[in-house]
């Protein structure tokens, strides 16, 4: 298995170098970012998921403990919400931990042909914190809704409301990192509000 992965990585790097020499920059970006994402998922996701899910549970639990609304058992990646006689245990598994979002954002960023290395480092740190924070916010909202309205609202809280918050914040990040700079960095010619010299009148 290790040999197959190593072989795939070598092939991937070779394809990138070919695309680079051929000046096919869009395909280099596409294959580079997707390939990097897959490689990270295959090789490192297993190592990162459990500590990250514990960190998400622990961070969410801070708010819960302060307000007394829910409690985190972070060693089990678990958040426990008690509402009257009802209770629900939320497990933070790899699909809830945000590991896929963190890796996909980073893979896209490092192959995106706009920023220099220093800018990418800064954006990477900010972006990861943003995604991590968004996930915490999503879970806090879900827990609060369950706490106040009971288990019956869980589906709405998780599948609709929580996801709207998380998707909204994620798309905002993607827009500000990948799309908006194209508008800002666009050169539209030099212009000024001018000084009213006689030759300008």
């Amino acid at each position, binding site marked *: 298995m290790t040999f197959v992965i190593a072989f795939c990585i070598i092939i991937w790097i070779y394809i990138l170098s070919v695309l680079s020499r051929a000046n096919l920059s869009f395909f280099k970006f596409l294959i580079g970012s997707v390939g990097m994402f897959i490689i990270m998922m295959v090789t490192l996701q297993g190592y990162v*998921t459990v500590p990250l899910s514990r960190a998400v549970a622990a961070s969410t639990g801070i708010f819960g403990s302060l307000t007394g609304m829910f409690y985190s058992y972070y*060693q089990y990646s678990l958040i426990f919400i008690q509402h009257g006689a009802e209770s629900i245990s939320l497990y933070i598994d790899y699909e*809830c931990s945000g590991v896929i*979002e963190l890796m996909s954002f980073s893979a896209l960023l490092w192959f995106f042909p706009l920023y*220099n290395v220093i800018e990418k480092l800064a954006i990477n740190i900010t972006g990861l914190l943003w995604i991590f924070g968004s996930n915490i916010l999503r879970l806090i909202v879900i827990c609060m809704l369950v706490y106040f309205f009971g288990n019956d609202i869980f589906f709405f809280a998780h599948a609709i409301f929580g996801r709207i918050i998380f*998707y909204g914040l994620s798309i905002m990040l993607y827009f500000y990192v990948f799309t908006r700079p*194209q508008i800002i960095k666009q050169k539209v010619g030099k212009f000024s509000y001018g000084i009213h010299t006689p030759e300008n009148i």
Partner: protein
Amino acid sequence: MKIRDKLAGCMFTLFLISMFSMPVYAASSEGVVNLAEDSTSDYVGITIDGNYDDWADKPHTQIQYSLDSGNNYHLGALFRDAEYVYLHIKMSPSGYTQFNGYNYRFTTDNKVDYVLAVPPEGTSIVDGNNPLVIRRQNGYHIIGGASGFITRAAGQPDEWELSIPLSFFDKNHYDQIRTISFYCSNIGPQELIATGTPTLPFLIAGAGLIFAAAGYRLSKRKRNK
């Protein structure tokens, strides 16, 4: 930017992601955990052996009928990992204190299965630890891989634990089970629910790719003008 720089960037990313968990380990009484030893299949840390210490640090729900007095409640906990679902019940110290293993209803993503927990044929429950056999209620077949123990002591309420492999509920797609709930009308009206809250992460990853590709195309078009 060279490929070498991009690879270095990705390594840096992994370092950052790993750093998120550092405060957790710093606060953990277990000390530093070797990441390579972690797996999603055993982090619950429950062994079905009639020793209940491994349930002590896990959250329990009070199970009682509204007619019962405030002190007459049973304690129940439902846990899961990648392979098994675990159940722990401790009966009320007063009132209804004896084991009941009938009509256990497990609901996995809207699929309902009824399960029995009974002593092995020809045996009965005596003081001390007693093994339990876990059977499918419909057909009375033994569930392979499931196990249980009940503990009885004089003057004490009965306490038992059991585990059932998730493959019993969905043989082919047990790794995709999201929500498991337990309910037993013989014990109380409360339902114990263990669930995940997935973000549909590949949807966001796909959206990110579209945004980045659109941004790239936009910049390329402007550069060509």
